[in-house]
């Protein structure tokens, strides 16, 4: 009798274990768990942390990096890398500024211009990589500098302000959600845009041919080529799409600062890559999730914000952040080894 019951119980537990501790589930749980642990820790460490204002601050601080990280996720899953996301973001913001503030065109043209500029630039990177066979690291390093310089030239070295475009700053800072839907939850639009974009991109990555080829290219490019797929075209499309997302990031940052800051942008690509990698996407390609990337982006901003709230010396903040990135990636390596 007892024996029988025991075995049945064991059966259930092992099945449960399999469901909860399957490698894929475990990875996401690991990152998510870390985020929760950090959140709880900071909440106890300083009462100012777990306040609506501060949570909103964390959310909006994640928006731009989160969007850039989503853009990078696609490219990194293909086994490539895009170093130009930061300066491309700035460049699209500058172009948007030219449309709106210099030419005085209506707002939707500026939005469209930013996203199209991003897409075109991404397409150019993709072409360099797919057609001219320039390694992604070099091609996008070139694009990074090229876009940075062009942005400064076009903006005449000065920030372009959007003061004359009514409602432009509302794109990021206002809260449609809080104003019209849930008054108690004044989540800024930038954050809503981040989450909507994440959901859409997650769907694209997992349920469309585009997403399938993104993974396939990172897994074994030659095999995809031999399967009769136009590898070059898809690669270009992926970089192009990633560029368009950078355009969204450009709009978010321009709207938040109510200006296009042409000198800004360099350094943001590394933060985006860090978020992607912390989120469990492999730099060697073939593996990755948007959810992981979003969690990775939040880990970075919760950490930054929490350390700030605790008034940790700034130099030490940098040290701790570096340590966490290494620890997160090493944890991932250990996980892979165990499989």
């Amino acid at each position, binding site marked *: 009798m007892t024996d029988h019951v025991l075995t049945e119980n064991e059966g259930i537990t092992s099945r449960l274990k399999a469901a909860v501790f399957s490698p894929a589930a475990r990875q996401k749980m690991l990152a998510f768990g870390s985020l929760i642990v950090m959140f709880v820790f900071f909440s106890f460490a*300083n009462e100012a942390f777990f306040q609506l204002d501060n949570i909103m601050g964390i959310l909006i601080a994640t928006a731009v990096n989160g969007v850039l990280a989503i853009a990078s996720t696609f490219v990194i899953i293909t086994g490539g890398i895009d170093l130009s996301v930061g300066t491309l973001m700035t460049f699209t913001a500058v172009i948007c500024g030219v449309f709106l503030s210099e030419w005085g065109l209506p707002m939707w043209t500026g939005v469209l211009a930013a996203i199209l500029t991003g897409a075109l630039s991404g397409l150019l990177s993709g072409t360099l990589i797919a057609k001219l066979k320039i390694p992604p690291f070099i091609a996008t390093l070139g694009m990074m500098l090229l876009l940075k310089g062009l942005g400064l030239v076009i903006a005449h070295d000065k920030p372009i302000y959007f003061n004359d475009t009514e409602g432009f700053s509302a794109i990021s800072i206002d809260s449609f959600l809080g104003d019209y839907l849930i008054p108690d939850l004044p989540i800024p639009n930038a954050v809503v845009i981040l989450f909507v974009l994440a959901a859409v991109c997650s769907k694209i990555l997992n349920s469309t041919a585009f997403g399938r080829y993104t993974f396939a290219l990172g897994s074994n490019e030659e095999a995809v080529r031999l399967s009769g797929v136009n590898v070059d075209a898809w690669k270009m499309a992926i970089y192009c799409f990633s560029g368009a997302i950078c355009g969204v990031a450009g709009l978010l940052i321009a709207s*938040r*600062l109510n*200006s296009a*800051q042409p000198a800004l942008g360099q350094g943001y690509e590394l933060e985006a890559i860090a978020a992607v990698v912390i989120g469990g996407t492999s730099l060697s390609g073939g593996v990755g999730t948007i959810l992981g990337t979003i969690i990775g982006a939040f880990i970075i901003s919760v950490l930054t914000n929490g*350390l700030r709230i605790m008034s*940790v010396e700034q130099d030490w903040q940098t040290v*701790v952040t570096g340590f966490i990135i290494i620890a997160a990636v090493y944890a991932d390596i250990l996980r892979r080894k165990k499989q």
Partner: protein
Amino acid sequence: MFSKKMFTAALGVTALLGFSNIGQAKEIYIPLISKGFQHQFWQAVKAGAESAAKKAKVKITFEGPETEAMVDKQMDMLTAAMAKKPRALGFAALDSKAAIPLLKKAQKAKIPVIAFDSGVDSDIPVTTCTTDNIAAAGLAADKMAGLIGDEGEVAVVVHDQTSRTGIDRRDGFLNQMKAKHPKINIVSVQYGGGDQLKSTEITKAILQANPNLKGIFGANEGSAIGVLNGAKEAKKKIVVIGYDSGKTQKAAIMDGSEAGAITQNPVGIGECTVNSAVKALKGEKLPKITDTGFYYYDKTNIADPKVAAVLYD
């Protein structure tokens, strides 16, 4: 499992660093959000602020983004600082317009804002503790003219083209030359990001292209050191006028490779910011701008107590 362990360790480290600062919420807390924290200049501002805070018995924190281009990072810092419910706020804006929505929030919460180093285009700050950069750069132009005989070719190496100080110092220098020293020809204005190495390369290129060049104005500490290095590497003897201080510039002025430099009063800026905040909290009326002053110093007056007090290493 492993990562959990690591995480605990990481958090332990942060706790060690952080706990010392916890539990002092009762004191008056004034965060200062600066434009940077790595430069000697900002360290001097920080030192001034800290000493003033000690005297006034208030608690301050001092932070700024890694580079002066990171406008949005500064916004994040401002947001985090506001979350800590400060009594007053010191702020050196990287972009004077971008921060206005956040400053309005502070105004609503009745948190007095003291601008320092450069102004904010609004009437929110109760005062601005700053150097008159245009006048200071103009003085640099006059000194340069005097040293090269009021004629010839001169170049300028500026830290950046977007920040207020960059623009003011560049324009202050150029306009003064145009207005008062028409025989002096500015052959080149270049931007080195305040990076010593980049400014060195820029200087060498300028010297290569303009063999008759008589002098270069370096518009901040990093630029000035770059100019000195560049001239040394190119083995050219030119008149160098710098900005701010620091060990390297002080030594260069003593050995004659640098003619002189404009110094602001960074310690004074820091003190002024904290003191103004304390005064504002007491309800005292403050002037719109508090000029913290500047000096031109060279070999002759570097030891003058009035000057030496504002120089930093």
